[in-house]
């Protein structure tokens, strides 16, 4: 009996101890050691979600170049998967030991400023004002009450890709892409090749590469919640847009749209590559897929068509900023690194190697001329740069950050035929207004 007792005590002691084993190598101990560096250098922890075989070497080369360019700071790149990076960052900010620089969503930068998740960069900007280096719309998205909380890094926009061979076949001029919404419809009708209820070739469906919100922005250049926190959902322009989109939906019908949509998502099988889709709205980086999967495709690119002549080819984009999480230990050094990251040289390298839009204007314009791009590459990148001044962002409104959950179902209801566009916009406007009132 006595033996048994001791045995069980021993057993449990072992269990408890093995459970505690995790403590011996704490993260914080490792970090402190790192932060000093070998030769008195300040070591910075830089978090990104760029772990792919294309992006990772590019970002690590930039980090390496920075480390070589000076002898006071050493940056270490940490890849954190897309699904984890910002929740992890948030937890580390709350715990008081955040990374030194992190790449984050540009649209919610003001929100993070308001919630004190990111450091206010104004004191650095007073000394060296780099705000003029970036597209204005991008810069403005980083501001909360006039102060910047992140520096724009990369961005994107939406442009119209079209199949030149299909244009010729349909009797259209391959050098004249559609300029207005009416032309889009007209061209699509000509490009359509019907086969019973189905389509052998679909001309164009506006919601394949862009959301309802993109077309609404294209129509009136006003966000759902404008900069004065006023709800601008139930407006005549947005109603027009929703009706127009609904007419496209009715034209092709649920079944065709759904089955094409799913092909769209599988990369190689994209009907645009096989010539079965005449026109498609996509990000400029879509070119890299054409290059890899359909190198022989004879295609062109154009700015997003405008609602009416003179209305403007407004497009929509997003992007990422480099920022200093609130409470980071070496903000001065972090700032130095961010400056390097968003300066011309690093930005141009990123742009050319990834075929990605960058926030630095000069870098974007130089990249467009790069010898590393093919003819088609230059054409697409050049147009992307041309589209940037027309590109609007949709910054997360501080008064109602999660409002899309309320309005997207209303749009769904319209396409499903469960609500009229008028009713849907009226309901959406009411719901968002209510959310704002609740949050006050």
């Amino acid at each position, binding site marked *: *009996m006595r033996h048994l007792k001791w045995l*069980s*005590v021993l057993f*449990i002691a072992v*269990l*408890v101890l093995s*459970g505690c084993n995790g403590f011996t190598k704490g993260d914080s101990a490792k970090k402190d050691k790192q932060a000093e560096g070998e030769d008195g250098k300040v070591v910075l922890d830089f978090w990104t979600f760029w772990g792919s075989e294309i992006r990772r070497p590019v970002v690590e080369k930039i980090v390496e170049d920075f480390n070589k360019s000076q002898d006071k700071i050493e940056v270490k790149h940490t890849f954190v998967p897309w699904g984890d990076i*910002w*929740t992890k960052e*948030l937890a580390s*900010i*709350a715990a008081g030991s955040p990374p030194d620089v992190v790449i984050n969503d540009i649209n919610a930068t003001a*929100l993070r400023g308001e*919630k*004190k*998740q990111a450091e206010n960069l104004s004191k650095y900007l007073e000394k060296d004002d780099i705000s003029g280096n970036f597209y204005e719309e991008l810069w403005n998205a980083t501001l909360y009450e006039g102060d910047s909380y992140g520096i724009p890094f990369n961005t994107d926009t939406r442009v119209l890709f079209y199949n030149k061979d299909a244009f010729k076949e349909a009797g259209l001029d391959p050098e004249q892409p559609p300029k207005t919404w009416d032309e889009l419809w007209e061209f699509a009708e000509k490009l359509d090749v019907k086969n019973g209820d189905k389509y052998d070739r679909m001309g164009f469906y506006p919601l394949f590469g862009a959301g309802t919100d993109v077309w609404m922005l294209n129509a009136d250049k006003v966000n759902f919640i404008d900069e004065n926190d006023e709800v601008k959902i139930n407006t005549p322009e947005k109603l027009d847009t929703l009706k127009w989109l609904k007419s496209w939906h009715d034209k092709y019908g*649920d*079944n065709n749209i*759904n*089955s*094409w*949509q*799913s*092909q769209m998502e*599988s990369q190689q*099988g994209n009907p645009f590559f096989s010539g079965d889709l005449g026109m498609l709205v996509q990000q400029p980086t879509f070119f890299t897929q054409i290059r890899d999967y359909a190198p022989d495709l004879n295609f062109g690119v154009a700015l997003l068509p405008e609602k009416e002549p003179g209305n403007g080819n407004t497009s929509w984009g997003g992007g990422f900023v480099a920022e200093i999480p*609130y409470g980071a230990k070496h903000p001065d050094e972090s700032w130095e690194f961010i400056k390097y990251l968003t300066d011309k040289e690093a930005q141009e390298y990123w742009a050319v190697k990834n075929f990605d839009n960058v926030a630095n204007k000069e870098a974007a314009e130089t990249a467009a001329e790069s010898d590393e791009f093919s003819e088609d590459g230059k054409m697409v990148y050049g147009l992307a740069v041309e589209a940037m001044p027309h590109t609007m962002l949709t910054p997360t409104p501080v008064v109602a*950050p*999660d409002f*899309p*959950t*309320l309005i*997207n*179902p209303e749009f*769904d*209801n319209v396409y*499903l035929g*469960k609500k009229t566009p008028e009713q849907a916009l009226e309901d959406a406007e009411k*719901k968002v207004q*209510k*959310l704002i009132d*609740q949050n006050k």
Partner: protein
Amino acid sequence: MAGRKRFNYKTREGLQGYLFILPWIIGFLVFTAGPLLFSFAASFTNYNITSQMDFIGLKNYEKLFADDQLFWTSLYNTLYFVVFSVPITTVGAIVLSALLNRDIPGMRFFRTVYYLPAVLSGVGVYLLWMQLLEPGTGLVNTVLAWFGIAGPNWLFDPDWAKPALIFMKLWSVGGGMLLYLASMQGISKSLYEAAEIDGANAWQQFIRITVPMITPVIFFDVVTSLIGGFQIFQEAYVMSNGEGGPVNSLLFYNLYMWKKAFEAFDMGYAMAMSWILFIIVFVLTIINLKLAPKWVHYEGGGK
């Protein structure tokens, strides 16, 4: 040794029991109890993780019940999922394990095959199912088309999105199947022999012997899958790109809570939501435990 007589048998047995669950108790106190109490306290504040935490009384709870525009939607979606998925997966697992509880050649192979999906888990499986459920090119609708059935738009149709998820859950009944199979193999052969002599057919044997004998496992399965069902999150998060699906048909309770916590950064509110869910699940589990003696049969015990 007078000292050893200090504890009688029952007390000693109790103490030993506690000793054995001590690791769990320590883990609970150190890692779980703290955050649990913190979330309860913070549910009465406007906590946003980084910059504010002011006491606001019951405001979060009032807002949830009276004013929230998606609370009831998300609760409805979750209840819908639980009400259908728990019985269907339970019955599915029992039927499957009954089929696999036979002595025919190659049975090991089938058992392995049916258990395999339970081993695979996580995001990869959901992405796979998104492909299978694609309306135009997916395997599910392709097979349905062989029989002349025009398959629904599954994840794109608000009426079919939740059934699609429940259907997907059926694929991984292997986990439950394993438990039932083990339990069925523990049933004494003599019971079946006696029944056979009395002229009972296979169905009667299944209903009168097999099912009652595995009720403890059914009970365990129902309780755990009920709790798990209320916590559904990943499936909806991955398969709707974090959006909540068409017309918010996949906006489950936990997905909505996640959005409040990490998109709106209204952590206090999200914590209040989590406590409401806790109470719902707690009450249902208590009911389950109270009902258990009426239908759960423990072999050789009056317990």
